[in-house]
């Protein structure tokens, strides 16, 4: 498959990149690892006039501890995240999620964490070849007015299948977006718009610069279900963060996030709150919260990423339960 034509720009500095984005933002796409972008371009889903490569911007590749938080440069490769002791210790959910992203040869060395959380929403009806799509009317995401995944839907129901996004949402992470002459920090929960066509609340002239994970005294965990672990995107995933009280016997605060079931990672506030004050070995409470998560997530999901909807919904409960058990086990250890 040939890539469509484009102009290749390779700025040497971050300022240079932001200048280019300010000028060409509308017609440009950022190239980091290319494992998501180039596939979409090959399928004709995107035809940017300019490609701005981050190849020379080594300043965006780092993992450091600063101001009581873990800071990760957006261009840090998945392989470097997996190899980092700091991330294994401070953000085990992110480590577990990154380890499960695709196969090492596909994503880990070329793919970046920034690219992972900015990977476009997917749908079986949209992520197809040009030939396949040419035989039918365009869907919402393709510029048309139809949703093949949900009948009579007035909007795009594509699914956010990013492993990193789900884990980072559970870890209550923030992202730093840089524009020409300014920077702004956005909570990840606000960053995802729940709009299938434009999933991210960022301007085309902005660049994702950094991911900030606040320190937590809790433990996090990530669980995912995919057809073929090395190749496929998750069809259901869940990540949780459990923070214990001072006695380390009860849960003071919980965050339950379900991924690959909606247009953005689903932070389930009600289910998270239900675990407040529960003992770390209260399996019944975990089951109840997991079951409730299934019901909440089921309202958002459509049948568009493989497996039947019934199966995926049923598995939400299992993934959330396993993640809760895993995090609680780590806390007790």
């Amino acid at each position: 498959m040939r890539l469509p034509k484009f102009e290749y720009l390779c700025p040497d500095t971050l300022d240079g990149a932001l200048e280019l984005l300010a000028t060409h933002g509308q017609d440009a796409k950022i190239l980091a690892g290319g494992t998501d972008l180039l596939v979409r371009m090959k399928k004709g889903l995107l035809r940017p006039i300019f490609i701005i490569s981050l190849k020379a911007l080594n300043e965006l590749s780092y993992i450091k501890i600063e101001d009581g938080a873990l800071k990760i440069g957006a261009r840090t490769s998945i392989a470097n995240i997996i190899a980092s002791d700091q991330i294994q210790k401070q953000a085990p959910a992110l480590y577990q999620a990154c380890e499960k992203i695709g196969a090492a040869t596909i994503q880990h060395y070329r793919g970046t964490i920034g690219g992972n959380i900015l990977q476009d929403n997917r749908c079986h009806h949209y992520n197809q070849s040009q030939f396949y799509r040419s035989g039918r009317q365009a869907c919402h995401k393709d510029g048309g007015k139809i949703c093949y995944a949900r009948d009579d839907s007035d909007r795009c129901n594509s699914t956010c299948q990013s492993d990193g996004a789900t884990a980072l949402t559970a870890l209550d992470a923030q992202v730093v977006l840089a524009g020409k002459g300014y920077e702004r920090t956005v909570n990840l929960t606000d960053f995802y718009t729940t709009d299938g066509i434009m999933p991210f609340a960022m301007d085309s002239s902005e660049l994702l610069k950094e991911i900030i994970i606040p320190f937590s005294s809790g433990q996090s965990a990530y669980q995912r279900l995919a057809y073929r672990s090395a190749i496929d995107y998750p069809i259901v995933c869940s990540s949780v963060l459990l923070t214990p009280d001072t006695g380390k016997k009860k849960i003071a605060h919980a965050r339950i996030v379900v991924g690959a079931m909606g247009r953005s990672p689903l932070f389930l506030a009600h289910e998270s709150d239900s675990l407040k004050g529960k003992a770390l070995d209260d399996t019944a409470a975990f089951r109840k919260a997991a079951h409730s998560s299934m019901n909440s997530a089921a309202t958002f999901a459509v049948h568009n990423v493989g497996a039947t909807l019934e199966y995926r919904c049923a598995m939400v409960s299992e993934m959330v339960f396993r993640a809760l058990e895993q995090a609680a086990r780590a806390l007790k250890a």
Partner: protein
Amino acid sequence: MDKIDITLNINNKPFEVTVSPNDTLLEVLRDTLDLTGSKESCGEGVCGSCTVQMDGNPVRSCLTLAMEAEVANIKTVEGLANGDELSGLQQSFIDHGAVQCGFCTPGMLMTADALLHANPNPDENTIRKALGGNICRCTGYAKIVTAVAHASDPQDDCPDCKNGGKTKE
């Protein structure tokens, strides 16, 4: 969208090539430089038959722009053998019958070669995980996994190791 002259460092030799920005590394390797060992199969990063090494790491050449590979040390399957002498890994693939149609073999070899450099004595799980991104439709993988395991550690009780080229020497 002009063509651009770049130098690619492939198998320790510099190659001056003229590329378009939208040329992938795989297209330049195969079409411009006639290094046709790396194969294109799916073209979207799923199957692994186009795997080459960049700075020792296995990557998909079909999802890497030639322009992005400019400063890296690239190793293709052609760089494994030393003249007519096959590498231990290649010989092990032959001895253990790890090659059938052969289309996935260059990718398998490049992924396994990178693994063996990072971890000279991997266990079966490690090998299976490392080769997880390479698809083979013929062998059923068992012989490939054995070939990789026995490449660095020939087994006395393995008839393929005993009778193969490696232990004859």
